[in-house]
C-alpha cells in the first residue's frame, strides 16, 4: 500500500495547462499557468458542425490536446517521459511502479469516470488530464486542477477512464517531467509561441479553424435547431456554449482572460510596452466572449430560441471574429 507523495496541489483554469504547470512547479520550475498556455500557443478556435464522434455541433477554444505539453517541451527544452500502453494491466502497473518511486504522474482520462465530480459536470470526453499523486488501498489520490483539494478515485474508475475507447482514446497515456534545463530562454520561447498562435488564428487554410472558424460558428448557429430532438435539447446545447466558454476547459472567455495574463507577463521578458496595451485588449475580447456566454445561458433558460435570437447570437459571435482578427494581426506585427 502506497501513500501520498508530498505534492502541492493547486487549482487551475484548465486541466492540461494546469496539470503541466503543477507537475513543473512541483519539480522545482517556477512557471505560471498563463506562461505555459501562451508559450505553448494554447489559444485557438475550431468549430465542428458535423462530426461522427459528436452528437451535436461543437467548438473548441484551445489547441489540440497534448499540444500544450509538446509545444512547451520543445520551446523550453524540457523533457517529459510519455508512454501509452497496449493493455490496461500494463498501464496500471506502470503507474503503480512510478508512484512507488515517488514520481507524481499526469494521466489522460475520460472525464465521465471521474466519480468525485457531480453528475451534471461529467461528460464523455477523452482529453481530461489529472495528476496521480498516491494510492491508498484501492483508491488513487488525484490532483485535479478543477478541484480545490486532492480527491480520491477508485482504481476501477481510473482504469476505465485511462482505457476508454472512442475518439482521442487515451490508451493509458501518462507523462511526467524527466529533465528541466537550469537556464531557460523565455524570451525566445514567448516569441515562438506567440508567432505560432497568430498563425493558428489567422493563417491556417482550413475554413473551420482560427478566426475563420469563429465566423463559421457565427454563420452556422442558426442551423442548430435542425440537430435538436426538441426545444429542451436545443436549450441544453445552447447553454453548453456557456459551459464551454466558462467552466469546462475554461473556454473562450476564460482562455482569453488567461492569454491576457500571458501577454502581461510576457511583456516584461520582451520589453515591449505595446504588449501591455495588447493584454488589456485581450481582456476586453474575453469580456465580449463572456457576454456571448451569458446571452446563450439566458436564451437557453427562457427557451427564446427562435431564429431572431440565434441570429443575434450569431452576430455577437461574428463580432468576436472581427476583433480577434484585428488583435492577432496587431500581435503578429508587434513581433516584427
Amino acid at each position, binding site marked *: 500500500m502506497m501513500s501520498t507523495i508530498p505534492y502541492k496541489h493547486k*487549482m487551475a483554469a484548465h486541466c492540461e495547462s494546469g496539470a503541466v504547470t503543477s507537475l513543473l512547479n512541483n519539480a522545482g520550475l517556477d512557471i505560471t499557468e498563463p506562461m505555459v498556455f501562451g508559450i505553448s500557443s494554447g489559444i485557438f478556435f475550431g468549430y465542428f458542425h458535423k462530426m461522427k464522434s459528436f452528437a451535436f455541433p461543437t467548438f473548441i477554444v484551445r489547441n489540440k490536446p497534448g499540444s500544450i505539453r509538446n509545444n512547451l517541451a520543445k520551446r523550453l527544452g524540457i523533457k517529459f517521459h510519455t508512454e501509452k500502453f497496449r493493455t490496461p494491466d500494463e498501464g496500471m502497473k506502470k503507474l503503480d511502479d512510478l508512484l512507488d518511486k515517488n514520481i507524481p504522474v499526469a494521466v489522460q482520462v475520460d472525464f465521465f469516470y471521474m466519480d468525485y465530480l457531480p453528475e451534471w459536470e461529467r*461528460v464523455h470526453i477523452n482529453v481530461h488530464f489529472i495528476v496521480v499523486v498516491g494510492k491508498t488501498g484501492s483508491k488513487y489520490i488525484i490532483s485535479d486542477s478543477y478541484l480545490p483539494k486532492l480527491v480520491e478515485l477508485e482504481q476501477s474508475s481510473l482504469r476505465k477512464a485511462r482505457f476508454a475507447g472512442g475518439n482521442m482514446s487515451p490508451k493509458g497515456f501518462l507523462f511526467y517531467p524527466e529533465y528541466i534545463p537550469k537556464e531557460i530562454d523565455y524570451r525566445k520561447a514567448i516569441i515562438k509561441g506567440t508567432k505560432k498562435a497568430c498563425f493558428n488564428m489567422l493563417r491556417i487554410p482550413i475554413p473551420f479553424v482560427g478566426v475563420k472558424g469563429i465566423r463559421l460558428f457565427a454563420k452556422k448557429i442558426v442551423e442548430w435547431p435542425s440537430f435538436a430532438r426538441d426545444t429542451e435539447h436545443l436549450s441544453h446545447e445552447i447553454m453548453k456554449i456557456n459551459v464551454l466558454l466558462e*467552466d469546462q476547459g475554461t473556454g473562450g472567455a476564460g482562455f482569453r482572460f488567461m492569454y491576457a495574463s500571458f501577454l502581461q507577463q510576457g511583456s516584461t521578458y520582451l520589453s515591449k510596452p505595446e504588449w501591455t496595451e495588447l493584454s488589456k485588449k485581450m481582456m476586453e475580447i474575453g469580456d465580449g466572449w*463572456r457576454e456571448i456566454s451569458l446571452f446563450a445561458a439566458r436564451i437557453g*433558460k427562457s427557451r427564446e430560441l427562435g431564429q431572431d435570437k440565434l441570429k443575434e447570437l450569431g452576430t455577437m459571435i461574428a463580432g468576436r471574429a472581427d476583433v480577434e482578427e484585428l488583435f492577432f494581426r496587431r500581435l503578429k506585427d508587434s513581433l516584427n
Partner: protein
Amino acid sequence: MKEKDGIIDCPQQQVIIYVEKEDGKFEPMQTGSYITKNFLDDYELKRLHLEQSLNKQVASGIVSPVYYYMVLEDLTISELAARVGIRKGKVKKHLEKEHFISLPEETLLRYADVFNIKLEELLTTGKQKTDQTENQQPVS
C-alpha cells in the same frame, strides 16, 4: 474582467478565472461557476424530462436500454461502437429492443461498463424507473 465582476458564490462548483486585480495585474481568482449557480435547476429539469421520455420509449418497446443510455450520455453510434468495441452496424441493431433482448451477458456487460452502470440497471431500464421519475418533482 474586473475582480469584483467575477465573484460568484457557488460552493458546489469552484473555478479559476483570470481577472484584473486592483493593482492592474491579471491574476487567477478562485470563484464559483456562473452556470451551476444560476442554471443547475434548469439543467436538472431538462434531464428529468429526457429520462422520462426515454423511459417511456424503452417501456413501450420503441428503443432498447442501450439507446436510453447512449442518448443520456450524449454519445453517437460511432462513438459508442468504438467504446464498446462492437461494429457500428451491430450497435445500431442493439438500439432496438428486439435485438437487445437476445444479447449475451458478455455483450451487455460491455455496454454497462461503458455507461458506468451495473448490469442490473441496464436490464431494468424502462421497467421501474418510469413510475419513479414521473412521481419525482422538478427542482425548479
